[in-house]
């Protein structure tokens, strides 16, 4: 038997090797002995698009036939009907950090995104930067690099410095190539991109820029049954601007007490509720916050929050990630809410606590792989709205969906070093979007936006807090008390309004 399995595994390695892909031992070890035959069968069948799959996708591919083992005990099904599995969750212990951790962190980012970029046809034959000196003048090249610097020349051309583990290269994007130039204007520091162009002595002239992005052939998954997923964020319980009446109305609806027939029908069929952070307003988030708090005690804020959430029918799982107002480190990834501060929430039996960011799989059945939901509170959004002109031109804070697209295209939740607070993980960059999700949920912006991007449903939750003095000042126009809901059978999105 053992012999047989080793043989089969070698087969898998072979199948991939023929197509120029090296399978990691990590993946091989994950494949259970029983399923191995199925996998080889699947791979042998010609239906697989090798171009588009990375490690996890292979896993996703086979998981359709085999139920993945979950890493977390919390993820066990709380309800037979509503399957919730935590696919990826951050649980590293905090520890002392050294400069080398930052170095490793960026190298890991480079490697992860490079892997995604390499699947692009144009980047099959890239050279490492220290090898460019061996190349001829005017030779066509492609390289993959992390953006170290971005300048505009006197003539208005863009000059970037790209860096890979072997060295740095300056590249120039001429403003006379308007389409390319326009795209390139959006490039932000520390994202990883691929470029093709012509080599010259000190600089490379660019013809094409390739972002890792989402494969165009991503499947639009649909569930067999009519069931709904509901998305909340930014409750800000404890704030003097929290909207208890609106939330009350939401609770009445979900308990079937108000709404028209169709709305009641939806309420009855809610299968999952996601909450994308900022459950409470917190304490000491900004100077003199106490003047704007109704509940000045963090424990009482969570207690009150739990009292509200308990009024949701408890057969519906609540999947909760933290945000920057919650009581834990702001540095991302943020671990799940702690038992110390958020005890009343932990005590609820329908709550699934996850990290920010995290990936949660829902609604899988024996013959359906379920939907992967990427949750990210959205702290980095502020930076990109401020720094990227095109995002502001598209509507800035009113259009969370364009920010989310922007990040998906870069396969990273906060590419620029300054864009969010993060913990430099030496082992991997947890903010890289390695796995392509079916849903991308965020919040933070206090205004709902939904869109579809390459068959990923983008959803930004609304909030339950009226306009704060700060938002007034910076000109944000929050739209509180809106609830986006997705019909998992049709993938249609609806937004219910609960404001007065």
């Amino acid at each position, binding site marked *: 038997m053992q012999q047989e399995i080793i043989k089969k595994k070698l087969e898998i390695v072979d199948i991939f090797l023929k197509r120029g892909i090296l399978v990691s031992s990590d993946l091989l070890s994950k494949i259970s002995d029983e399923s191995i035959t199925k996998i080889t069968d699947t791979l042998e069948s010609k239906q697989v698009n090798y171009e588009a799959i990375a490690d996890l996708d292979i896993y996703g591919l086979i998981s359709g036939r085999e139920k993945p083992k979950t890493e977390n005990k919390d993820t066990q099904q709380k309800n037979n009907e509503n399957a919730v599995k935590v696919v990826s969750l951050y649980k590293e212990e*905090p520890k002392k950090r050294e400069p080398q951790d930052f170095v490793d962190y960026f190298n890991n980012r480079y490697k992860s995104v490079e892997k995604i970029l390499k699947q692009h046809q144009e980047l099959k034959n890239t050279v490492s930067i220290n090898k460019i000196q061996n190349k001829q003048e005017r030779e066509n090249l492609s390289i993959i690099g992390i953006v*170290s610097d971005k300048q505009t020349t006197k003539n208005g051309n863009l000059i970037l410095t790209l860096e890979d583990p072997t060295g*740095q290269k300056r590249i120039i994007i001429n403003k006379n190539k308007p389409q390319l130039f326009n795209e390139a204007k959006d490039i932000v520091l520390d994202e990883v991109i691929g470029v093709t162009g012509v080599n010259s002595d000190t600089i490379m002239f660019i013809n094409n820029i390739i972002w890792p992005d989402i494969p165009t052939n991503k499947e639009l998954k649909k569930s067999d049954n009519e069931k709904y997923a509901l998305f909340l964020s930014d409750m800000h319980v404890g704030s003097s601007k929290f909207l208890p009446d609106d939330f009350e109305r939401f609770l009445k609806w979900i308990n079937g007490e108000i709404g028209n027939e169709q709305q009641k029908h939806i309420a009855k069929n809610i299968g999952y509720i996601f909450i994308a952070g900022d459950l409470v307003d917190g304490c000491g988030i900004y100077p003199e916050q106490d003047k704007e708090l109704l509940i000045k005690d963090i424990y009482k804020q969570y207690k009150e929050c739990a009292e509200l959430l308990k009024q949701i029918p408890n057969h519906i799982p609540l999947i909760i990630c933290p945000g920057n107002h919650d*009581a834990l480190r702001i540095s991302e990834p943020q671990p799940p809410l702690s038992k*110390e*501060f958020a005890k009343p929430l932990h005590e609820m039996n329908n709550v699934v606590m996850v990290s920010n960011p995290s990936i949660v799989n829902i609604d899988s059945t024996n013959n359906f792989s379920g939907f992967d939901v990427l949750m990210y509170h959205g702290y980095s959004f502020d930076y990109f709205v401020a720094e990227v002109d095109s995002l*502001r031109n598209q509507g800035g804070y009113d259009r969370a969906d364009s920010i989310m697209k922007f990040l998906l295209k870069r396969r990273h939740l906060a590419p620029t070093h*300054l864009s969010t607070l993060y913990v430099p993980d030496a082992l991997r960059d947890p903010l890289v979007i390695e796995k392509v999700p079916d849903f991308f949920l965020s919040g933070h912006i206090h205004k709902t936006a939904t869109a579809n991007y390459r068959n990923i449903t983008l959803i930004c939750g609304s909030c339950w807090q009226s306009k704060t003095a700060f938002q007034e*000042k*910076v000109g944000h126009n929050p739209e509180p008390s809106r609830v986006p809901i997705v019909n998992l059978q049709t993938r249609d999105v609806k937004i219910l309004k609960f404001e007065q």
Partner: protein
Amino acid sequence: MTEENHTKDTQEKVDYAYKIANEARAKGYDPEDTVSILLAKNLAERVEGLVSVAAPQIMNTGIPQRIKELEGVYGKLDWRVALRISLETAQEKFCKFETQKEAIETGIRIGLAYLTLGIVASPLEGFVGLKLKKRMDGKEYFALMYSGPIRSAGGTAGTVSVIIADYIRKCMGYDVYDATERERRRMVAELYDYHERVTNLQYLPNESEIMFLVSNLPVQIDGDASEEMEVSNYKDIERIETNRIRSGPCLVLGECIAQKAAKVLPQIKKWGKEFDLEHWLFLQEFVQLQKETKTREKREKKKITPNYTFIQDLVAGRPVLTHPLAAGGFRLRYGRCRTSGYSASAIHPATMIILNKYIAIGTQLKVERPGKATAVTLCDSIEGPIVKLNDESVVKVDTEQKARDVAHSIKEILFLGDILINYGDFFNRAHALAPAGYCEEWWALEATKSIINLLGSLDYDKLSQLTDIDANHLEKLTKDFFFEKPDGKTAITLSKLLQIPLHPYYTYHWRTISKEDFLEMLKWFKTARIESDKSGVNKIVLPKNEAAKRVLELLGVPHMFVNNEFTIIEKNDALVLHTLLNPDKEDSHKLYEKIEIENPLDLINHFSDVKMRDKSGTFIGARMGRPEKAKVRKLEGEPHTLFPIGKEGGKLRSFQSAMDIGYVEAEFPTYYCKQCKKETIFGVCEQCNARTQKIGNCSICGSVEGAKCKHGEAPQYKAQRIDINYYFKNILKKIAMQQYPDLIKGVRGTSNKSHIPEHFAKGVLRAKHDIPVNRDGTTRYDMTQLPITHFKPKEIETSVEELHNLGYHKDMNGEDLTNPEQILELKPQDIILPKCEDAPEPGAHKILFSLSLFIDELLTLLYGLKKFYNLSSEKDLVGHLVVALAPHTSAGIVGRIIGFSKTQALYAHPMFHAATRRDCDGDEASVTLLMDVLLNFSRQFLPDSRGSTQDAPLVLTSRLIPTEIDDMVFDLDVVKNYPLEFYDASQQYEMPWSIKIERLANILLGTEPNNTPIKYTHPVGNINSGVKCSSYKTIPSMEDKLKGQMELADKIRAVDAADVARLVIEKHLLRDIRGNLRKFSMQQFRCSKCPGKYRRPPLTGKCLACGGRLIFTVSEGTITKYLEPAISLSDKYNLPSYLRQVLELTKDRVEGVFGKEKDKQEGLNRWFG
């Protein structure tokens, strides 16, 4: 020597120094062959000199003459002079410009320079240029580009600069700015962002004010981005080119136009029509708008309320001395001593000592009123502190010696003592007078008046007969009142006979206790044992009663506490209290209780035949600002010369390590020696001593003659590798030095436009004398600015003979100068430099003496001339000239050294400080020897970046002309006494101008003859007493400073320690921890070996330049440093639970990133507790 001769003498000395320096510079060792600092004999020349930095073509085109003419028409410093001269310059009446835009810019600069007396750098750095932008209808309008240094122009000049620009605009036919709604809103958002996130604006207009201004201003107030931060709202506006915050427009709109509109308006009304500026009358409507807002904001004007501003921005480690208006804090005492006024205030030397020496002469205090900040000096004729000792006794600490004796056994500081603030400072800041507490000078006025009323004249003999008090004593009590105190019996007798309030020495702080307290104390007195002798009651012995004893403490009654049981009041205090309270009287307690008078002071006055005034008056809140300073200015790396030594100079940037390597790679100018036929980096050949020729470097044809070739400009420098040993050896030979100093330090690279280095021979000689160089080529000594109007020869270590030589012949009373104890009035251009033995840094005497030796060697060895100074000791500096320069200004003023004090102050006449355009609120100024500036300063050393001409001596004023100095100094009061009406007015919160007290303005500009002597109200024994160096400067760690701060907070009654703890945590520690935690993951990285810095670490993990190890700029230690002290503080003072929870959450956030440190847990209360 007459005053005129004295001025002439100074002028001659300056001219002679210029002559020598020009001879030296002609030898070619410096960037220019002549002295680089322009000598201006008056304001008009200074204006020309200053603006010529930006527009050299204006020199010698007649601008100063025209200014003089215009002054003849409109009067000195009249704004119309500025308007006219600006317009004429813009119209190219004096010289041509390349473009009309340049002409207009220069015009605006000239006007602004005139308004700011040609002293500050604002005309060059604050107004940075003009942009012609398009209106919606396509016509052109003016956008004025302002930047941060406009601040030093002051609000009024800043505002008038806008009017000048608009005047030119109108005359030259440009259209008005048509602000859009978004542009207006952007300015609102930007001002608020600037105020909240960058730095406080002195005046923050409200939204409607800003909207109104921007709509109505005929020009756009614009500027380049100054902050990294973007505005929070209203970005991407076409006619505002940046989204980042611009300090210039914020300052001009807020602190200039909005704040000064009311001041500018009357002038517009006066001559607006004549100058076709009537459209500026919109300011009328604006001022109306402001008034409406203000009346809405504060209805009740009379009376003062506590002002917490000064305490809000407190700094950890700098103690809070009193909360606003808190009883027991600094008592306001009106007056001026010879070292106060012009924003400086004085406290008693004993106060300095009992404050654990945190406050020294020159230390800045942030105060509640009348201004924001003040520099502290001392005055020993005002009241000192009252303290409770460890043995529970209460004593008045009225001498320095007493303070030193009790300093270590103080349990509580009940009263801090007086703070002496002059009338002029209230006048200048337009602050309503606050009630004065009863004091000797007031009592003397009332006594004198009453004696005359009673006896027809000041007949002390008659009064003596009536009272049986020695006539001499009586006279002294009313004339020498600061030093002559009555005994209790005399005080009571005089009060009764003359019908005047009881002498302040026996008046306690009755108003500050409650009726309840008072009755408690009265009850206690009924149980007292009272002892008398033949002259009356002389002892009151009271049984144990803690609560009642506390009342005595709060009143400030000196007493003893013995055997842990008895409270004993002795002698005069016993007699006075017994007289006032009359405890023997059967039902006095009931009488007091029944009557409906709440305040104990009024209660006593109601029943007693001895009347009293309120002793407390107004208490003024204060905290320590920045410590005083006297030290030589050192650049980073402490270079001896501005010569680039490249990375070959190693960590120390030394010639020695470069010589070990053998070469230096840097940018150097290029010269050619025709005799030796070789290129060199010097203007004089290091081999043959011939003058060399500058050559240009074209990237195509190589070396060319001159600065241009057919390919365009050829820079006269290039990056090159020079043989440093060769140059060094030759230069050493030239200056005939066999041995050279062990460490000679240069700079890593030159930052000026043409990469001009200083000749390193200067560095060798500076290193020999151990003096550093500033970035402009001079050596600077920085000091806290303090005013002084009178001095005693012995205080400044200058003999009577020397002072005769310096032109001091008479003392302030007109007596011949013979004795070092006599008091002399200071001549306005004379200065007294610091020679403080308590300070950690060497005094000015040492540095300037070394500097003189350096200059003499430089003259003889490098320039081949004679010695200039020839000093044999530090004392010989007396009589020599220096150049003084305040930060943010560009014009130096010549001063003459007449001696040295033991403090860390630049003691100079208020008019001298005004000539540097600074008041004495705790800021610093610098001096250097005149010859140093002339020989070693060059404009070409200044970096090619904005702001570089600030703090550089571009223009030199040789003669102080009182009408051409900052007019704020004119408000200095110059009298010997304030009148009785003044004290009455202060009780009514009258405005200062309702009482006429003579000010400097009256002497210089108006009614009084010009040579009227200046006087002061309060005498000072010795300006060198008290504390001369703040202990803040000698406490090594922040942690210990914080502990010291809390120790004082605990000790001082007028300080709410818990509030200090809360503020320290909220404003300092928490922000620090959270700010650094935030920065941790956004931090830059730097190389452990070279100066390389990285926005984020390179993927290779090593420095890209040298392969060195990368290190943090924000480490875990900097984040966790204050966590423990903050938590420990909040525990000790039992702060509100919200704050404690915020700390707990912050700790959790820190530990969430770095993990818990187990071994630190036990030390949690190690800090405070």
